[in-house]
Every structure is written in structure tokens, then in C-alpha cells.
């Protein structure tokens, strides 16, 4: 069993009448990437900022490498990097290299000590060609890569990343995912990450926490979560968008959801497949494609949240 890097115990944070965090507890082990999922306002960012000491919590305790955040915040920060506001975390009027030099400098680290690391980060994030250009001109993805490089420049062993793929396209998200996986493997970093991008979280994290209204409602490995909530659906692509009457009829056989010309049906029994075909036939709807699909992390997340609400 790996050593515990971050230990959060009975964390409580309230703002007047609002309970942002209600006795949440979890551990992060060295070398793992732990994902935090939750709807907007669920307490994900508050949790990260509490670990960094940017938000002062009311009750409970947080230890990073055995050091208390409340008592020795500055000591903890020597070994922790973070991205909290995405690409806004860096200076857009400077170049990537100038940003790297500055963020190392305000930690008391001289240029010489980070020059090799800066070259490595710029190279691995494919920023070498634009290393001396003004960030303002960059795309969102490139800005986000610069923010990542700045968080990693002083080689912290723990990284807290709040929505690192927010607003990025699939290609850049995948590049960032691969880069993070690579650096975790090569340098043994520990990462705590929040995201709304379920594919990203599923592909990068072994364990995930699901937070809702400041409470942890699920804390499992992605694998066990998927096993627990395993469902099979039938997905059908129709010639035209289904009318609500057709969807109502199908819903008598099981849960149904529609997206454009595609419908997803979870039948109560496989025997309902014949009546389903009959309904489609009677509605004079041409079926273009038909296949079974397993529920993905997004479905599971919504189900967990829904279960808790009920």
C-alpha cells in the first residue's frame, strides 16, 4: 500500500447559511490520480482550495505529507502546485518562458535551477516553438498547456488541478491527459483533479470521489463503480427525429432518452425487444442502426446523483 500524501478528515466549511462542505473525509495515496466529480457548486473547488489553505475551513483537519495545513501552510506549499482558474492563472502579456521564470522566481528559485526543467516542459507540451511569444495570442489549449507547465516548473510532488480541460476540444484534452499520465509514471506525481469531462476522468483516474452539496456520496474505484452500476442499453439510430408520442409509447417498456435522431432505451427485460420493434414499425419509423451499449461514467454519475436526490 502506497503512502498517504493527502489526508482530509471531517472537513467542514460553511458560509452563513450555506454548508459548502459537510464532514468530508478522504485520502490520496502517493503516485495516484484521484478524481473529484460533482455538479456545479457541490464543493469540489472548495475542497482543493482548502487543501491549499486559500480557503480557511471551519472544522476538521487536512494533512499533506503529514503536515497540517492549518499550522504549516507555507511548508506544505513547497511541495504542491496547482491550477485553479485554468489559463487565467498565468500572465498573458508574457511568454511561456517568462512565466516559467517568474513563477519559479517568486518561490525563491533562480533561473539557472529551472532552465533544464523549463526546456523539458516546453518540449513535452509542444510549446518550444512559441516559448518566447506572447501568450495572449495563443489558443485556449495552448494557454492551458502553459498553465500546466507553470504548475509543474518547480517540480512539486503533489498537483491539484481544478478543471484542467474546461473549454478545451477533444484533441487537446487527450494531449493533456496523455501528458499527465506520462509525467505521473515518469516522475511519480500525485494528482488530485476535478473535471466535468467524464471521459477525461475515466481515462486518467483509478479512483473517484463524487461530491454533492458538500458531501461525499461515492468514493470508489472507477472499475467498481462501473460494476455496481452496470447497465446495458439499446441504442437506435432512426431516420428522423422521434416524436414525443413515439417516445411515450417506448417508455412503457423501459427508460428511454432521445438525442436528435438517436434514442437510448433500457428495457426492463430482453423480451420487450419484440414489442419495441413493433412500436417502431407501427410508427413507420425506419431503423438505420441498432446496437447494445454499456452505460459510461457520465450515466453512472447522473444515476448516483439521482439516487441521492431521491
Amino acid at each position: 500500500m502506497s503512502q498517504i500524501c493527502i489526508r482530509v478528515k471531517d472537513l467542514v466549511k460553511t458560509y452563513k447559511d450555506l454548508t459548502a462542505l459537510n464532514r468530508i473525509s478522504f485520502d490520496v495515496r502517493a503516485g495516484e490520480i484521484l478524481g473529484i466529480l460533482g455538479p456545479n457548486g457541490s464543493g469540489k473547488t472548495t475542497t482543493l482550495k482548502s487543501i491549499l489553505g486559500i480557503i480557511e475551513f471551519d472544522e476538521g483537519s487536512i494533512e499533506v505529507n503529514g503536515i497540517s495545513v492549518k499550522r504549516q501552510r507555507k511548508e506544505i506549499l513547497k511541495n504542491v502546485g496547482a491550477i485553479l482558474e485554468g489559463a487565467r492563472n498565468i500572465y498573458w502579456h508574457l511568454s511561456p518562458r517568462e512565466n516559467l521564470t517568474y513563477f519559479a522566481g517568486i518561490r525563491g528559485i533562480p533561473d539557472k535551477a529551472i532552465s533544464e526543467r523549463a526546456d523539458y516542459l516546453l518540449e513535452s507540451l509542444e510549446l518550444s516553438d512559441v516559448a518566447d511569444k506572447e501568450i495572449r495570442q495563443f489558443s485556449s489549449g495552448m494557454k492551458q498547456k502553459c498553465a500546466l507547465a507553470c504548475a509543474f516548473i518547480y517540480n512539486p510532488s503533489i498537483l491539484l488541478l481544478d478543471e484542467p480541460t474546461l473549454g478545451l476540444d477533444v484533441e487537446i484534452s487527450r494531449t493533456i491527459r496523455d501528458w499527465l499520465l506520462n509525467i505521473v509514471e515518469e516522475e511519480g506525481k500525485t494528482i488530485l483533479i476535478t473535471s466535468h469531462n467524464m471521459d477525461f476522468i475515466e481515462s486518467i483516474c483509478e479512483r473517484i470521489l463524487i461530491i454533492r452539496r458538500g458531501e461525499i456520496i461515492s468514493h470508489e474505484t472507477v472499475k467498481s463503480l462501473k460494476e455496481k452500476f452496470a447497465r446495458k442499453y439499446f441504442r437506435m439510430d432512426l431516420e428522423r427525429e422521434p416524436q414525443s408520442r413515439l417516445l411515450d409509447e417506448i417508455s412503457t417498456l423501459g427508460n428511454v432518452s432521445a438525442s436528435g435522431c438517436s434514442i437510448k432505451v433500457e428495457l426492463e427485460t430482453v423480451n420487450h425487444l419484440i414489442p419495441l420493434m413493433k412500436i417502431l414499425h407501427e410508427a413507420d419509423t425506419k431503423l438505420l442502426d441498432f446496437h447494445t451499449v454499456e452505460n459510461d461514467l457520465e450515466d453512472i454519475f447522473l444515476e448516483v446523483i439521482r439516487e441521492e436526490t431521491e
Partner: protein
Amino acid sequence: MKMLHLMAAEGKMLYWTLRRYLFNTLMGFGVMFLIFMGMFWGIKTIGGTGVTGDSLDSMLVGYVLWVSAMLALQNTGTEITSESQRGTLEQLYLSPMGADKIFFVKAVMNMVFNFIFITAMLYISMAATGRWMNINLLYLYAMVLLSTLSLVGISFMMGGIGLIHKRIGSVNGILSFGLIGLMFLPTFPITPYAFLPFVAGAATVRNGIVRGHVYPVWWYLFIAGNSLLYLVLGLMIFSKMEKKARRLNKMGQY
């Protein structure tokens, strides 16, 4: 040693920013040059050739005091507002050096850069007009730096308020106006005004350089004590407000 690296980083940041916004930098130079030329030619035109260097010295000292005081007074509050608007404020709080040290170094480096510009402009203006002054710039800058530390303290208080309320431009404006009056109050030998921030230092610089007054050592120690007191007070209030901002989760919001 870490403090030196922090100073180097802030110095570079200032240089990079001046270089990036070159047009604004050149305009700033231009305005400063016009002010200096205005001082030199204005005095010459009004007073004719019979005017001694005192009037010019007095104006120059007044100008340096005024610009430095404004810079010291508004620096931390303005920095906090702009870092907060950009979204980089929280990153400064992630430095183990501490945000208070970073903002203090920012203030000092701004002052040093300001001295460099003033000196450059002064020599350019003297060369352009052929009128050479005899001012001990080292004494002037050392005294200005020492006495404006008290204003840096006030600026930290304002910065602390800025962490919570974000926009503090109007308060800064009021303080700046108040400062004009403060600069001309009598302080020596000790009057109640001498206990206000910056007042004793400003009067000493003006009288020392322009009128050649000589002050006892204890007076300089008094000025240093005054500055230190306001600086420590400012840092304490900043720390309290920072704690409150952390409690209210106001650090990253604008």
C-alpha cells in the same frame, strides 16, 4: 538568498511588462520628460537668470517626493486589484515565500525602477537645458525610500481592504489628496504631525536638500521608527484581512 531571487523575478517582471507595453512606457517617459523640461524652462522663464538653483531644487525634490509617495501609497492596492482581475492572485498565494513578501518586493522594485527613470530623465533634462544641478541624489533616494516605507504600510492596509472589497480606487484617490497637505506640515522639533506617516521624512528631505538644514541622528532614527511602525501595522492589518478573505473565499474572486 531566496529573497534575492524573488527580487530578481519582480525586477524581470517589471522589465518584461515595460517592454511588452512599449508604447505606454515611451509615453510615460515622454510625459516625465515634459514635466522636467517644464520645470527647468519654467523656472528660467519666470525667474530669469538671477534665480538661484534653490527653486529648481525645491521643485525637483517636491516632484520626486510626490511621485514616490503616490507610487508607494497606491502600489499594493492596485497590484492586488489587477492580479485579482487577471486571475493570478491565487497563484501568488501559492508561493511558500508568502504573498506579503511578494507584494512588499513589488513595491520596493517599483520604487527602484521609478528612481532609475527619474534619474535618467533628470540627466537628459539637464543636458538638454545646459543647467546642471547639484543635488545629492543618493541622499534623496535613500531618504525617500526610508520615509515612503510608512506609505507602503498604508498601501498594505488598503491592499487588505482590496482583498475583500476588490475596488478601492476611490479611497486611494482621497488618500492621495490628503497626502498633498501632509507633505507641507511642520514636524521638527517633534510636533504631533511628525507621528503621521511620511510627514517627517518628506519635510526632512525638502529642508535638508533645498535649505541645507542639518538634522541630528536621533531624528533620522525617529523617521525610521515611524516608517517601521506604519509598515508593521500595515502588514498586520493586511494579514488580518487576508485571513478574513480566506474565511470568506474572496481570494480569487473579482
